[in-house]
């Protein structure tokens, strides 16, 4: 990796209080089971309200892919099941009770099909993300490459090395398992500082990248090393999840705890902690939040979504002061600053660096703005998801416009290819 590539990107700094050194393990009193981000999925429920479930127990299966299970991240009682019209899952709320754990049979996981089955039934599958288009992979999909992200360059991301501390063996086992699922390579992407001490003979290619954002972003890494296409999907998964997969294969129990970091201007002090997907953010931030109205986001400060529950793949919680309502402005001032069409983007070095200098930033922005599907695909859109352009969106002050354009274009391309 050359000097220019390694130093590409930006280090956006956001105000926030210092972090306390303790890293507690928190299981929240309430948790939800949700489908991964994307359009709501049709599900078949396996539990009813009032039933008791063990940690890791399947609570629903996908209607279109019955082998893929959504599992409870805590042991407890099913409090509410909220479905949208068409039996699409909104959320299943669990109240914590007991500490029962579901153990899976790993005896048949030595071959690729057995491993897939185990990953689907244990609830690991939704932790995988596919490109193009995002979401979890289909049951039978075979990726051309798998990217394991071992370092997160987003502002406020948890310490990746700490997340993998003492889990070298599980990580190696997980990487070996992943290599059975692809015809291509497994790439382990990390920075020099976060490179695990011992990757052993894990069948993966290590890619070292710089510390500036978005160099550690899966989309930029995918674009650089193994571009995704409609017929050539690429998966990405977090290294901590890969270690969880290794542990699942060793013990039959899929660990639910992950290292997350709570940061943001709306806190008295920040904190890293271990918790589970679907954790109640209100409980996680209860003793940390500064007085006054705040907004909580699941995900980073750049790409997070307002939420009360931790997302299935999120490892950050951002807490920011609630935005005050703006007073009415004079009509002329309003006319000067608000226009029906978005104000054009001027190509600058900041824009180039916001995309890690990995692709022609200004032509891509113009293609996105114009809704030019072919142009955007030609420039590498299929390797990207909204979050990969979150920094560009932030830098240009677009307030989510670019991310919305990416999603809309990806959805349109997906629909056209599906037809």
């Amino acid at each position, binding site marked *: 990796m050359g000097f220019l590539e390694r130093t590409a990107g930006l280090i*956006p700094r*956001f105000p926030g209080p210092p972090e306390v050194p303790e890293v507690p393990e928190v299981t929240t009193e309430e948790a939800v089971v949700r489908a991964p981000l994307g359009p709501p999925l049709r599900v078949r429920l396996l539990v009813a309200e009032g039933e008791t479930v063990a940690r890791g127990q399947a609570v629903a299966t996908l209607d279109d892919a019955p082998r893929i299970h959504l599992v409870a991240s805590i042991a407890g009682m099913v409090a509410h099941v909220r479905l949208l019209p068409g039996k699409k899952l909104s959320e299943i709320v669990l109240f914590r009770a007991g500490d029962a754990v579901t153990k899976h049979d790993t005896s048949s996981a030595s071959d690729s099909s057995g491993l897939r089955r185990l990953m689907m039934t244990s609830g690991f599958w939704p932790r995988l993300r596919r490109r193009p288009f995002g979401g979890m992979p289909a049951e039978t999909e075979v990726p051309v490459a798998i990217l394991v992200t071992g370092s997160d360059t987003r502002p406020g991301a948890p310490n990746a090395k700490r997340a993998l501390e003492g889990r070298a063996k599980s990580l190696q086992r997980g990487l070996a398992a992943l290599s059975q699922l692809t015809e291509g390579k497994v790439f382990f992407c990390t920075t020099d500082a976060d490179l695990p001490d011992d990757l052993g003979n894990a069948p993966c290619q290590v890619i070292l990248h710089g510390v500036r954002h978005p160099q550690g972003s899966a989309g930029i890494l995918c674009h650089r090393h*193994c*571009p995704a*296409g409609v017929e*050539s999907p690429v998966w990405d998964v977090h290294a901590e999840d890969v270690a969880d997969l290794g542990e699942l294969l060793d013990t039959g129990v899929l660990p639910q705890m992950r290292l997350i970091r709570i940061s943001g201007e709306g806190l008295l002090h920040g904190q890293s902690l271990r918790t589970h997907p679907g954790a109640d953010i209100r409980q996680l931030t209860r003793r940390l939040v500064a007085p006054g109205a705040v*907004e909580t*986001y699941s995900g980073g*400060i*750049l790409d*997070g979504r307002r939420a009360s529950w931790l997302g299935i793949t999120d490892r950050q919680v*951002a807490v*920011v002061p609630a935005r005050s309502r703006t007073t009415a402005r004079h009509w002329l001032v309003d*006319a*000067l*600053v*608000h*226009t*029906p*069409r978005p*104000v*054009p*983007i*001027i*190509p*600058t*070095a*900041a*824009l180039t*660096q916001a995309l890690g200098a990995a692709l*022609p*930033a*200004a*032509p891509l922005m113009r293609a996105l703005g114009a809704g030019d599907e072919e142009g955007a*695909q*030609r*420039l*590498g859109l299929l390797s990207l998801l909204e979050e990969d352009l979150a920094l560009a969106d*932030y*830098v*240009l*002050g*677009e*307030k989510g416009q670019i991310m919305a354009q990416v999603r809309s274009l990806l959805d349109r391309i997906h629909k056209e290819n599906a037809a």
Partner: protein
Amino acid sequence: MNGGIWTRETVAMLLLACFLPMASSWVWYGGHLSLAFLVLMIVYGWQLLFLLARAQAPSLSGVITALAVAMLSPEQLGPLRLALGVSFGVVMGELVFGGWGRNVVNPATVSLAFLGFGFPSFEWPAFDVPVAWAAIPAVALGCGLGVMSVGLALGASFVAIAASLLGAIDGSVVIAAAIVFVLLVADPATAATTRSGAWAQGGLFVALLTLFHQAWTGAAPVQMAVAASLLTSLAVPLLDEAALAAWVALRRRRHGRT
């Protein structure tokens, strides 16, 4: 959830900051500030009209256009001719495309080309050397702040050095080239957006200028530089497209897809 600062108006403000040393030295050495104000009034008159008619937000870039036209336009034109030229450039070169950032050619370039070709009997301005020297901090600041392309500046510099060593351009042309480069060619909205495209654009600008200097008898240095800037601007989409095609071909060869 948050907003950064690199909006269109930030870029316009930074460009203005880059141009301040040059504008100050121009005024110090006899530049007509009243001319700049007149052009500014015309530019913002049209911007206001487009704001009311098409809800098109005005931009601070109008000040840059006014400065460029005031500095580079032929002398003694009179307000009517100037208004005609500026109106043509601002409306046809920028506002009909949707404003600064959606235009293909710099509106000041279009205005100056219109004035130069429309009223050829008026003399083009000549600049004192300190005004041209002020182009160096402008480019350095612009590149440092990221609002001007480094490749563009380097491409132009390398070809200019080569042409100077060969004796193909003289001092007066270099002075005009430096000022026109800063005010017209380096406009980030109309400059090449790809790395190799920017190098090619910078090189092409100086190469065309050298060609005009050798072959265009009787033309003033600023006139040649404006003409070179206009032709270079028109070639930019082609340069960018060629650079993108090469980039895509390289990726296809390396990865099998883009």
